[in-house]
């Protein structure tokens, strides 16, 4: 594309069916304790990039 550069693709669809696994961090515990934000939390469930990498590594497929 000549006029638009995509920096990140859409991701919000994931986890909808499961209604969330509930493993990610509580937002207010992270650092702020005052201004709630969810966008800077990481997904920590199975299927999250980090969890997938860990699984691959554990299976010797890293």
């Amino acid at each position, binding site marked *: 594309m000549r*006029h638009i550069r995509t*920096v990140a693709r859409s991701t919000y669809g994931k986890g909808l069916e499961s209604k969330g696994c509930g493993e990610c961090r509580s937002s207010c515990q992270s*650092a702020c304790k005052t*201004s709630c934000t969810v*966008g800077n939390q990481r997904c920590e469930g199975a299927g999250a990039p980090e969890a997938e990498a860990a699984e691959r590594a554990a299976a010797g497929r890293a």
Partner: protein
Amino acid sequence: MVHAYRLLGKNIAIDVNGGAVHALDDVAYDVLRAVIDAREGRPDGAGGEVGLPEGPVAEALSAKHGKACVAEALEEIRGLTADGDLFTEGTFWGGAPGAGVGSSLKALCLNVSHDCDLRCGYCFASAGRFGGGRARMAPKVAMDAVGFLIRKSGGRRSLEVDFFGGEPTLAFDAVKAAVAHGEAEAGKAGKEIRFTITTNAVGLDDGMMGFINGHMDNVVLSLDGRKEVHDACRVMADGSGSYDAAVRGAKAMVGMRGGKGYYVRGTYTNRNLDFAADVAHLADLGFERVSVEPVASSWDGGLELGEAHLPAVLLEYERLALAVWERRRRGERLEFFHFEVDLEGGPCAAKRMAGCGAGYEYMAVTPDGGLYPCHQFVGMEGYRIGGIYGEQDAGLMDAFKSTNLSTKADCAGCWARFHCGGGCASSSLRYGGGIGGTYALGCEMERKRVECAVWLKVMESGGEG
């Protein structure tokens, strides 16, 4: 819904319901704005034509950028829409967040000490006393609170306990007892507890630091920034400034952490609207993970942020974003908490809908074992959920659970909703008329922080060229 904005020389589009982010040249930006205007008034997420209205708008765009370029940009916008990266329909927007595992208890904030060695002017804990008398949690209560968390956590595996106050190092015996108990019991239940502590760093000794480093997943150290700013609010009981002791403690603690988590966290008030200078100061002290937050309370009556301060605050976030970027470009490591948006590995839609979970998945425990929706509600009449020993008020918990992004009228039209999660219940209560309201000033700040965070991502992804 698409939010298109210009910031610090960049044209950026955020696909609100999908999360995609795009950097646009001037042609695509103007075309996209015209497309957004043409869709104005349609219900959010409604499909339909991505196009330009015939007539003066299209003509003006062609005159400015050339007809072929406008057509090209429009095709790109249509392509992204077809691929699900622009104008994503709000497929989950009507639904409430999930039940099941996602609604059981996950995290406790243990107010182990309703006492503090400092007397900060803005402290919502009111010099550590939370509206009541000074009190410290007994080790037994701290252990029982951890047991309560494990019992009430349903199917969750990862749990969290934050030691808070007042100043939690004043009740370090309770901290140690809770950690020992939690480490022993969580494993038996097939769970893991991540411990964190929030301290003013003034009274940290070697023993405490060794313990914190060995057992805590994260340590939050309170420092406001420049000495004169810090000492203006964060004073010892005798009125003297705490900067020197706090910096000494924080440096020693962070020096031990290696790769482990920490944040140096400050508060800005109407006295330091130039808070980017405080972040810079903290970075110059060698701290790489910094959070500076707007003052939460107006107990002191004189430090709070108001409508009149907003333009300066918003501009300051832009300055800060630029400063963070410039440092990173020089090879310095600096993370500013609210700019650390995760565009690809962020939370799922259910989490974005549910927000902070205060009142049902996250609660605060007082020294006597009382339960409140979160640390900000402690001591507030009508908001005691019950206690870890007695009953819990299911009705009150339900009120919090059923108040979320999908029920907050102001959030429905807000482009930042899936980054924000619906804001802070306590601020909503204080300034928005109830937990279902919003804190308008806080919303403006949140939207600016998200714009800045996404701008940084654009810059880091090669946006300089």
